[in-house]
């Protein structure tokens, strides 16, 4: 059983953060909210999302599992007007999701969850450095790096106590330093890793500019990117594997 009413904006935020990595996903309809875990086909980027029942106008579920085509569901949520609500109801018999938006009824065929790529195990990482900053600073870093390169180095200078972003292109370079005065928080630790901008750009698209974002970093280790949405009642954690320089 699953029946819920949620603001189109909250639903879109949740779906967008997953659709940057995969086209289809499984949604766990738990009693206290829904959760999604997915990894891209290359096993490089992972997302772990939870949306608490409190983020919904109303929410009833009993632990079901559905498979959805994300772009289809995003398109439907996009039909709502600003501030509009989306009503979702699962028909267990037909395995279809009935969606209502301002009198518009849409019946969405679900995907067999078994046909969707298996959900990843979350690597248990103990990352030494942590940086808390605003979403807009990530956006700025990613945009600047993208002008010169396909990858971006993120690291922490333990001596001078700042977080830095480096991108080296064939001709041009980008460097950005954020000190403790510009950051919300900084936990010092050895950290320097290189990441694909293809992935980071996509993840950046989902991160709200005003969100408080926590980055956890290590030396040639995956990065964890953590932020909240829907007034903190939604939580997203991305994990991205590093590029390792071959020489």
């Amino acid at each position, binding site marked *: 059983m699953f029946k819920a009413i949620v603001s189109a904006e909250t639903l879109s935020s949740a779906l967008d953060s997953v659709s940057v990595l995969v086209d289809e996903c499984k949604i766990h309809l738990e009693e206290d909210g829904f959760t999604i875990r997915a990894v891209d086909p*290359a*096993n*490089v980027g*992972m997302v772990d999302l939870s949306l608490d029942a409190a983020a919904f106008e109303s929410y009833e579920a009993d632990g079901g599992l559905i498979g959805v085509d994300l772009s289809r569901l995003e398109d439907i949520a996009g039909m709502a007007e600003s501030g509009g609500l989306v009503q979702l109801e699962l028909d267990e018999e037909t395995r279809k999701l009935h969606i209502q938006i301002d009198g518009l009824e849409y019946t969405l065929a679900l995907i067999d969850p078994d046909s969707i790529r298996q959900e*990843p195990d979350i*690597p248990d*990482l103990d990352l030494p450095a942590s940086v808390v900053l605003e979403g807009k600073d990530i956006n700025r870093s990613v945009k600047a790096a993208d002008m010169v390169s396909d990858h971006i180095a993120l690291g922490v200078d333990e001596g001078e106590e700042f977080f830095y972003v480096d991108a080296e292109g064939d001709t041009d370079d980008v460097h950005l330093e954020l000190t403790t005065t510009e950051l919300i928080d900084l936990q010092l630790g050895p950290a320097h890793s290189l990441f694909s901008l293809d992935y980071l750009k996509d993840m950046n698209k989902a991160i709200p500019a005003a969100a408080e974002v926590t980055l956890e970093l290590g030396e040639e280790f995956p990065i964890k990117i953590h932020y909240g949405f829907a007034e903190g009642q939604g939580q997203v954690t991305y994990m991205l*594997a590093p590029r390792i320089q*071959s*020489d």
Partner: protein
Amino acid sequence: MGNAALREIAVIEEVPFEDLGGSVVAVDAHNWLYRYLTTTVKWTASETYTTADGTEVANLIGIVSGLAKFFEHDLTPVMVFDGGPSELKADEIESRREQRATYEEQLETAREEGDAVAIAQLESRTQRLTETIQTTSRELLALLDVPVVEAPAEGEAQAAHMARRGDADYVGSEDYDALLFGAPETLRQLTSSGNPERMSLEATLEKHGLTLEGLIDAAIMIGTDFNPGISGVGPKTALKAIAEHGDLWSALEARGEHVEHGDRVRELFRNPTVTDEYEVDTLIDPDIAAARAYVVDEWGVDEGEVARGFERIEASVVQTGLDRWS
């Protein structure tokens, strides 16, 4: 190249590369290289891979583009070469040359004695790849940090052995004989464009209600790399005969037929010469600059033929997967 008639028996399904990401593939290196050699020689102007003194190193072009394909799909290849010395060192190249001379002598003897099994075995080890190709392939693979295993005899048997021990997820070979060597899962068409095929031993045995021994016996009737098979016996007849009579000997007796050296061929598949003495480091860290210099500067291969392949390797191998940390 094995017997294509086995295809009719084998359970094979196409599988997208993305479902294979993160796997280790024990590749029958001679089989793999040979595929690339024939396509390179067929489609590329010979000047691009022939040195000033007339030595052909088309294998280097093949290796570069072939490895790019593995790396792009996050597959880790382990190259398993047919019988030869264990490591590539200057003095051992000499010993391999000697070994090759020994094989050739043995082949000569086998021909004189008309020993068909020995001829087939030795021909596959001596004729397919030249000494230069043997040496340069190993040297390039070493620079690209691709693990190499030297099989004591058939590379395919060794690859199957490694897969059975759990040191590889798949055997990579075009040869249907991989099944007979007991490879649990074999990937075919790794050298072609498009998706590979996955051939499953368990599903094959289940489908026909056979044991591996029964499958080997049926294959010997049809014909393998090591024996020509009985004329007029195809997969259907062979399967039926084994099902009815239990094993090769009874099946042959019932038909009044004889397979020369059937017992030796059977033994070759049942108890192939393999070794547990190998080390495989699947964390690959290629030295692309050195590999490029080796191919282009040292062996004079036309840079244009390998530029794209090296770019693809460079762009792909450095991206790690999250599974490395879980």
